[in-house]
């Protein structure tokens, strides 16, 4: 019995992963945690609207998990989750896909490929009174994932002279 307990103790001190970070803070009452997993077909059609390509993208998403902190964005819990998040991004093979700043609002989007063609996209948003972590996983390429954030097929590309679709 004690041997088993020891082993578990050891595993408990392993490095923080995105999964464990989500598990940890989903238990915290100050956070709102929402998860959408199986059966995302319904959801896909609602979100993508009339955009056919968008629908395809959405159907490739396997799960979406969201952690949100409201109103306590200056407190210590904010500091701790930010630190832990930075570490996870650093050690977790994430690359930065988007970094946007606008009047006190920030959006960071990270991306990584995992085993078996699976990918994770992590969206971190910080506004005046709200901090959000959105974790999307599925079998999608970076371009496909970014497409979900374009407006009606126009990709977010600053350096094109005309319109892009």
């Amino acid at each position, binding site marked *: *019995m004690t041997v088993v307990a020891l082993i578990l103790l050891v595993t408990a001190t392993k490095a923080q992963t995105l999964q464990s970070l989500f598990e940890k803070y989903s238990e915290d009452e*100050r956070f709102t*945690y*929402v*998860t959408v997993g*199986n059966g995302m077909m319904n959801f896909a059609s*609602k979100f993508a609207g009339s955009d056919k390509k968008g629908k395809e993208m959405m159907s490739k998403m396997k799960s979406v998990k969201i952690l949100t902190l409201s109103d306590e964005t200056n407190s210590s819990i904010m500091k701790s989750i930010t630190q832990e998040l930075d570490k996870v991004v650093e050690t977790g093979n994430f690359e930065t896909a988007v970094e946007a700043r606008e009047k006190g*609002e920030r959006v960071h989007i990270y991306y990584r490929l995992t085993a078996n063609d699976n990918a994770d996209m992590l*969206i971190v948003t910080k506004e005046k009174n709200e901090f959000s972590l*959105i974790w999307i996983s599925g079998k999608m390429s970076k371009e496909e994932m970014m497409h979900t954030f374009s407006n009606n097929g126009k990709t977010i590309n600053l350096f094109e002279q005309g319109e892009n679709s």
Partner: protein
Amino acid sequence: MEIMNELLEKYFRGETSVDEETELKQYFKSGNVSSELKIYSSLFEVFDSEINEKANKPLIKVIQNQRKQKRIWIRTFAYTGIAASLTLLLFLKFPFQVDNYAVVSGNKIEDTEFAEKYVEKKLNHVKDMLNKSMTPMNDSFENLRKDLRPMNKLINVKVKMDELQNLIQIKK
């Protein structure tokens, strides 16, 4: 009834008190309405019926104590010395079942539609945020392009000036 006529006029002028409006409502409900005022019966009927519309039962009231129960259960297991691995397994399983749900301030809301709509809203919000920050940049690029056009014109003018100067020189 003359009184009712006057009251109704007052009503349409927006000058009636809540009590007077109640009086009007009672009058129209009574069924004993004069022929000229009958056309307004339906209006008051609409007001009467709309008050009965209700919201879907809100979700937060549901499953209030679930979290507390789960904690106690786990503690009991640990104290009774049952394999710690079992406890850990249960703990891991609970928040991460594959169902769709939300946990708002410690209360679990098991509603797929609610969870889906929440996610939809959040993603749309991110879209908005990105577009907001992208638009000023797109605008500045557009402005830059516009500003460059007069420069092209200037170049044309210079060419013309040069041509003119050449002409003048030749004339000399």
